[in-house]
C-alpha cells in the first residue's frame, strides 16, 4: 500500500497533478481476465440486462447504453439543441430551453438519478442537472423524452444535484458557486461573509412528477459540491459536501485548499419542510423559467415564475449541522443502510466515513466545535465511524454493492478500490484507463443496489482507442463485481464528458416503453388527423400548412401561392400508428433542422422563403420501400404577386 502511494507520488511530480498519470500503466489488455468477452456478449437479438443512463457533460445530453454490452441505444436531448431529433429546433420544444436569460440551447449535464419509491428504483422518471445555467430536467422513462425543465434561481453552477429522496419527495439542486443573493453589483473581493449558497428542495408531485421549488435554504458562502440523501434511519436528512470553506474569491487552487477540514452539511429537510408548511420562511421576488412538455399537445409551454420561498437555517434550530470532513471533499455518498456517510477528500489519501447514529448522539449531547455563521459544527471524533487509511490518491466518489462493500474511485492514482464497511479495510483495487471520475452501480443511490456491475467513467483515454485528432473519446469501463475480486470486462466510448450515471434493471423500464402516440389523443392545436383535413391558410404574411405524412407521401405534396417574405409554418402530423415508423421532413433553405415526427405526433418548423422558385421538401427518415418518392414542392412567387394559394395531392394523375 505505502509502495503504491510512493510510486504514485513519483509519477505525480514530473507530470503535474491532475493530468493523466498511469501509475498502473502496465499495457492495459493484460488486465482483461479470461472469459470477459463472454460476460459482455449479448447475442444479436438478445437484450441487455441493464439500462445505463450516462450523463453527457458538456454535450448537454444524456446517453442510454445497455449493460453489459456497452451498446449505445439513444442520446436523449436535454439541455442542448439536437438536430437529429429537432429538439430545441421545432416550435414545440423551443420553450423547453427558455430561461430567465432567454433561450439557452446548451448546458453542462452532470448527475442523472432515477425516481424511487420506498427507497428502491421505480423507473418512472430520471432527473438530471444543468450545471451552467442552473436547471433540473425530468425525463419520462416511458418515452425517453425530456418533459420538464425547471430553472433554479439564486443558484450558480448547479452541481450538488440532482439526487432524489427515498420516495422522490424531493430532488435537490445545490449551488456550487456562492453568489450574492439576491444578485447585485458589488466588489468580488467582498465575497467572504456576503456571498451565499442556496440549497433548493424541489418537490415532485407523486402523481405526474410535476416539479416545484418548495424552499431554498440560504447557506454560508461555501462551494456545495455533491450530495446524497439519507435513507433508512437517516431518511429525512440530506448531505452536501462543501469546499472553499475558506471563502476565498481568487486562486482557489491554493486559497481554497488551506483548511485541513471542510464540511459535509447535514440538512434535516423534514424539519425545514415542517417549518415552511407552518408558514416559515420568506417569499422572495425572483424570476425563473418553468418549462413543461405535454405528450397530449406534443408541445412545451414556458412560464416565468416570480417567487421563491427562502429560509435562513438559523431560524430553524436543529435543521442544519456541519460535519468536519478532510480535505476538499467531492463525493458525498450514503451507504444503502443509511448509516454511513462517506466524504471523499480530493486532497486526502484517506477516506473519512461519518456515522449517522453517532451524528444524532453528538447533536443530542451538543458536542459542537463552534459554529460557522450560526450553524453548529459537530465534533469530528464524535461522529467519525472510521477511516480507510491511504486507500489511494484523489478519492472522488463511492458506490455500494449492498453486500457491505464500498467502491471508491481515485482520480489521481486512476483506480477503483474496493473496501469493506465497518472494518475499513481495502479488499481489492483495479486500475482504470485513465483518471476515473465517478462510478455507478445500478441502484447505487438507493436502498437496493444491484451489485453485479460497476461502471467507471474515465476522463482520459489516450492510447485506448484509435486516435481521432487532438480530441479523443472519453470512456466508461465495466467491472464485474459479483466476486471477491473486481474483474474488468469492457470499455466503451461515451458522449461528451460522462460525470455520473444511473443504472436500472431493464425489466423495470422496458415493458412500459411507449410504442407510438395514439392519434385520437393528439391535442396539438395544429394537428390534422386525416388527409381530408389537410389545408393551407394565410394570415397576413404568416402561412400555416396543415400537413400529414403516411407511408409514402405527404398531403398535400404541391403547394402554390407562397411569396417571398412570408413566414411559413409547416405543421406536420404523422398519421402512422405503428411502432418505429417516424417520418421526417426538411425544406430547402430552412434555417432550422428537419423534423423527426413520431407516429401520432405533430411537430412544426418555420421556413422563410427568400428566393423565387419551385422548391422541394422531402422525407428525411427512410420509412418505406417508396421513401425516396416521399417528396413535394412549394412554389414561391415574388412578394406582392397574386398567385392564388392552392394545394393538392395526386390531382393531375387521376
Amino acid at each position: 500500500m505505502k509502495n503504491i502511494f510512493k510510486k504514485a507520488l513519483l509519477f505525480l511530480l514530473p507530470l503535474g497533478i491532475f493530468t493523466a498519470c498511469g501509475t498502473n500503466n502496465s499495457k492495459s489488455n493484460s488486465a482483461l481476465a479470461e472469459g470477459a468477452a463472454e460476460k459482455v456478449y449479448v447475442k444479436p437479438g438478445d437484450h441487455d440486462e441493464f439500462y445505463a443512463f450516462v450523463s453527457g457533460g458538456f454535450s448537454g445530453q444524456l446517453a442510454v447504453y445497455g449493460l453489459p454490452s456497452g451498446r449505445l441505444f439513444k442520446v436523449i436531448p436535454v439541455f442542448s439543441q439536437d438536430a437529429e431529433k429537432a429538439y430545441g429546433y421545432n416550435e414545440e420544444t423551443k420553450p423547453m430551453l427558455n430561461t430567465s436569460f432567454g433561450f439557452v440551447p446548451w448546458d453542462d449535464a452532470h448527475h442523472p438519478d432515477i425516481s424511487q419509491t420506498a427507497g428502491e428504483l421505480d423507473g418512472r422518471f430520471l432527473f438530471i442537472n444543468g450545471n451552467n445555467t442552473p436547471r433540473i430536467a425530468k425525463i419520462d422513462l416511458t418515452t425517453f423524452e425530456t418533459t420538464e425543465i425547471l430553472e433554479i434561481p439564486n443558484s450558480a453552477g448547479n452541481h450538488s444535484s440532482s439526487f432524489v429522496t427515498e420516495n422522490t419527495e424531493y430532488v435537490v439542486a445545490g449551488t456550487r458557486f456562492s453568489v450574492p443573493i439576491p444578485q447585485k453589483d458589488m466588489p468580488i473581493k467582498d465575497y467572504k461573509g456576503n456571498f451565499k449558497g442556496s440549497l433548493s428542495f424541489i418537490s415532485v408531485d407523486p402523481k405526474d412528477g410535476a416539479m416545484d421549488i418548495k424552499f431554498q435554504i440560504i447557506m454560508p458562502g461555501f462551494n456545495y459540491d455533491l450530495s446524497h440523501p439519507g435513507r433508512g434511519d437517516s431518511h429525512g436528512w440530506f448531505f452536501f459536501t462543501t469546499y472553499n470553506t475558506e471563502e476565498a474569491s481568487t486562486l482557489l487552487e491554493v486559497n481554497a485548499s488551506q483548511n485541513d477540514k471542510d464540511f459535509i452539511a447535514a440538512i434535516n429537510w423534514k424539519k425545514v419542510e415542517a417549518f415552511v408548511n407552518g408558514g416559515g420562511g420568506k417569499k422572495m421576488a425572483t424570476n425563473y423559467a418553468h418549462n413543461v412538455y405535454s405528450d397530449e399537445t406534443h408541445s412545451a409551454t414556458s412560464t416565468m415564475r416570480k417567487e421563491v420561498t427562502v429560509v435562513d437555517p438559523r431560524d430553524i434550530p436543529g435543521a442544519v449541522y456541519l460535519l468536519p470532513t478532510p480535505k476538499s471533499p467531492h463525493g458525498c455518498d450514503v451507504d444503502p443502510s443509511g448509516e454511513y456517510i462517506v466524504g471523499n477528500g480530493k486532497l486526502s489519501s484517506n477516506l473519512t466515513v461519518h456515522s449517522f447514529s453517532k451524528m444524532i448522539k453528538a447533536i443530542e449531547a451538543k458536542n459542537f466545535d463552534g459554529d460557522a455563521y450560526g450553524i453548529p459544527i459537530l465534533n469530528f471524533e464524535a461522529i467519525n465511524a472510521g477511516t480507510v487509511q491511504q486507500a489511494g490518491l484523489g478519492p472522488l466518489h463511492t458506490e455500494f454493492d449492498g453486500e457491505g462493500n464500498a467502491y471508491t474511485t481515485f482520480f489521481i492514482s486512476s483506480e477503483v478500490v474496493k473496501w469493506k464497511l465497518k472494518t475499513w479495510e481495502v479488499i481489492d483495487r483495479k486500475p482504470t484507463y485513465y483518471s476515473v471520475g465517478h462510478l455507478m452501480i445500478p441502484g447505487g443511490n438507493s436502498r437496493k443496489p444491484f451489485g453485479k456491475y460497476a461502471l467507471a467513467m474515465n476522463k482520459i483515454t489516450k492510447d485506448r482507442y484509435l486516435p481521432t485528432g487532438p480530441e479523443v473519446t472519453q470512456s466508461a469501463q465495466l467491472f464485474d463485481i459479483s466476486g471477491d475480486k473486481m474483474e474488468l470486462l469492457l470499455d466503451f466510448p461515451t458522449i461528451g464528458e460522462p460525470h455520473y450515471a444511473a443504472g436500472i434493471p431493464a425489466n423495470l423500464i422496458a415493458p412500459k416503453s411507449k410504442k407510438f402516440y395514439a392519434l385520437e389523443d393528439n391535442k396539438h392545436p395544429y394537428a390534422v388527423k386525416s388527409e381530408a383535413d389537410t389545408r393551407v391558410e394565410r394570415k397576413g404574411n404568416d402561412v400555416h400548412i396543415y400537413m400529414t405524412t403516411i407511408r409514402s407521401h405527404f398531403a398535400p405534396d404541391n403547394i402554390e401561392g407562397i411569396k417571398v417574405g412570408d413566414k411559413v409554418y409547416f405543421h406536420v402530423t404523422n398519421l402512422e400508428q405503428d411502432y418505429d415508423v417516424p417520418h421526417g421532413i426538411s425544406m430547402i433553405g430552412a434555417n432550422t433542422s428537419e423534423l423527426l415526427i413520431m407516429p401520432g405526433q405533430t411537430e412544426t418548423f418555420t421556413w422563410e422563403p427568400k428566393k423565387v422558385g419551385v422548391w422541394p421538401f422531402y422525407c428525411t427518415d427512410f420509412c418505406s420501400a417508396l421513401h425516396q418518392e416521399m417528396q413535394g414542392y412549394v412554389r414561391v412567387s415574388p412578394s406582392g404577386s397574386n398567385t392564388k394559394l392552392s394545394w393538392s395531392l395526386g390531382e393531375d394523375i387521376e
Partner: protein
Amino acid sequence: MKKSKILMFVGVLLLGSLFVLPLWNISLEAPQYPEAIGMNIHINKIADMNPSDIKNINIMNHYVGMKDIPEVLPEFKIFPYVIIAMMILGLIIAFKLNYKWYLAWFIVMCLLGTAGMYDFYLWEYDYGHTLRENAAIKFQNPDGTPLAYQPPLLGTKTILNFVAHSYPRSGAYLLFTGMLLSLIAFFQGKKGS
C-alpha cells in the same frame, strides 16, 4: 331432464359465445413485424389483433394496390340474425321436440357453416385478387399473371415477405363444441329411446 336434452341445451347456448369471442384470426409475420400483426374476425366486425393493426396492414398492402380491409362486410349484418335464429330454433328443439330434431339442427348448422366458410373464401379471393391498376409495385407469377395476395382459408401460406396464418379462434372452437354436443345429444337420445 334427460341427459340428451341437457347436452342439446348446452350445445345451443355455446353459440352465444360468438357475440363476444372472435371466430377467426388472420395474422401476418414479416421481418419488419417480429411481433406479427393481424385481425380478428367476429360475426359482426373485423377487429385489430393489436391496436392499429388493420391500419398498418392497409398501409403495407397499398403498395401492391390492395383495397383497404373493410370494418364491416355486408354479411356481418346477416350473421348475427342467423346465429340468433339458430339459437332460438335450437332451444325450441331442445325443450319441445325429440332427439331426431337434434340431428336436423346439426345438419343445418353444418350447411350454414360451410356456406359461411365459402363466403369467407370468396371475400378472401376478392381481397387478394382485386388490385388497383396503378399500383406502385406489381409482382407477377412465373407465367406472367399478376401475383395474388389471397390469404389461406385455413393454414399457413407464404406471400412475398409475409407468412400469413389463418386459423379459427375461441368463438369457432366453442361453436364446434356446441355442434358436437348436439350430435352427441342425438346419439344419446337414440340410445335412450
